[in-house]
């Protein structure tokens, strides 16, 4: 098996809400290896979203360890975490989260702006990423001039442009119809086929079925972790 990209040991996260402590994660241990395609499932309140924020380095754990690509990231400062998000993680959100006033090309360039890539390289890399998701002819369109599927492809191109260790998708088809969902899932499968590590948080079994491995959370703990035999390669 490939080396571990994600190593999580006994990860906990609790919030104080008006004096009451909410335990979102109660000790999760998980490792994800390079070029795995993992779906994280669970009912609402299972800690799915918290897990997603942890994996995406948007939040820091209350306890435990999180090693991402050989680096312990659970105790990093805000700015160091920003660095990690920029280099190691490509986010794909349910609501696309594109900048409405910027063109597809500029949206894709954005992570490169924050990693200090010079303008010329930025442009060519963004064009390459958009070409990879089949949107080479839509580069100058703004999000509101694109269909839902196209917007999500822009978001995927943006997630890929900085060659992250993991592609982290949060309900990527939640705002799409079933035909478009299939199309987007095909894109994920293709990227996985090209060697990309993909982690996807979803509550839809149909979508999770595309992954090789399904991790189910319940009450802040891993309930099950199994390989998905029927997954399309």
């Amino acid at each position, binding site marked *: 098996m490939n080396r571990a990209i994600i190593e999580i040991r006994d990860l906990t996260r609790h919030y104080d809400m008006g004096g009451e402590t909410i335990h979102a994660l109660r000790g999760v241990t998980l490792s994800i290896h390079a070029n795995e395609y993992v779906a994280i499932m669970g009912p609402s309140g299972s800690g799915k979203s918290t897990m997603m924020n942890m994996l995406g380095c948007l*939040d820091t754990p209350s306890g435990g360890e999180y090693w991402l690509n050989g680096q312990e990231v659970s105790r990093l400062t805000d*700015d160091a975490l920003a660095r990690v998000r920029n280099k190691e993680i490509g986010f794909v959100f349910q609501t696309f989260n594109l900048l409405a006033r910027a063109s597809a090309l500029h949206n894709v360039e*954005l992570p490169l702006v*924050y990693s200090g890539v010079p303008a010329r390289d930025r442009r060519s890399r963004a064009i390459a990423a958009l070409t990879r998701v089949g949107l080479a002819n839509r580069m100058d369109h703004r999000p509101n001039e694109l269909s839902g599927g196209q917007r999500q492809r822009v978001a995927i191109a943006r997630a890929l442009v900085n060659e992250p260790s993991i592609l982290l998708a949060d309900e990527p088809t939640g705002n799409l119809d079933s035909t478009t969902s299939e199309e987007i899932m095909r894109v994920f499968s293709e990227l996985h086929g090209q060697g990309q590590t993909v982690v996807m948080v979803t509550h839809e079994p149909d979508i999770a079925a595309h992954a090789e491995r399904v991790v189910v959370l319940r009450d802040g703990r891993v309930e099950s972790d199994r390989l998905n035999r029927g997954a399309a390669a």
Partner: protein
Amino acid sequence: MPLLEAVRMALRTIRSQKLKSFFSLIGVLIGVTFLIAVVSIIQGMNVYMEDQFANRLVGLNTFSLRQRPDIVTGAVKEEEWRSWFRRPRITYADARYVKEHVTVPATFAMFCSDRQTLSFEGKQAKDIELRGTEDSYFRIKNVDIASGRAFSEQEVRTGQAVVVIGDLIAEKLYAGVDPLGKSVVIAGLPYRVIGVAAKQGTLFGISMDKFAVMPYTAPARRWICPHNVLDELEIRATNPADVQVAMGQVEALMRSRRKLRPDEANNFFLQTPEAALDGWKKISGILMTALPGLVAISLVVGGIVIMNIMLMAVSERTREIGIRKALGARRRDILSQFVVESATLSLVGAALGIATGIGLAFLVKAVTPMPAAVAPWSIVVAVILGVSVGMIAGVYPATRAARLDPIAALRAE
């Protein structure tokens, strides 16, 4: 993130919300407009006062010996004013004495003037400045003759009834007729027109062509230079470097002639172009002192407006901030984005303010007799002020933006 990138990003945001941006920078725009317009007008006045007012009324390298100041541009105390009138007048003898004893090369012209009515065949030109002087006057004051000639030394010596008229009088009394050789009646006495002076235009909207020049010895002298007294003796040093020397000599000559003790003040006055500007300098000094306060008020208001707009922008764009943070923007990237956006907004306001300020100054120049000239330093100041107001106004909203939690920001509507 490099500065250029941040500025480009800011301009993109400003462009995408033109109207809102315009309203937010209007305070800075007004402040800078005011700064540029006022400075331009003051600057224009300075240039105008020196080039036109002082040098035209008094003359280049020229000063005059007078009983009291002629051109008073500031406030003078009643007492002082009265003391001027108690002084002895400048006499023909004083003038001759000075002429003979000044050692540096110079040209002199005895001079006096008064308001008179000129008439020709039933037409009248009232309130004309009738000047009685010597032939050298035309050289000292650079009075060009458009047609005909100036009067000669001989005509001065023999007291001929000849006159050189200003352009406006030629127009008024001799419309469609060549005035040369025609007669004109001044204070009831007949004169012959021998020359017409070149048109001089206006000064503060007042025509400079409403004058007539005659020999100070001519028959109408009793109306304008009574009892051997002069209004002034005009003195022009041949070399500009000699002006101060000549003034020193004239002062010493007059003091000794009038037997003034060392502790006594001069009881005569040397009018120079600089002295004519004293009052104006006082006025412009006051304006220049008050200006920063006035500009500061509008810039503070402008800064508060921008700060509010930026606070609004931060809450409107919370999600954008969340996205940027998720994609790897550090606190300082977000901070600089909003500070630069605020500064750019303010700078755009300053740039528009510079344009409207210049426009306003030239509008004033076009519709009023007031001149205008843009001072380059005021543009530099405006740009610096614009950027700093924007930066200061942007710091607080930008800090709030930079501190946003990415998870909460991403969840924002």
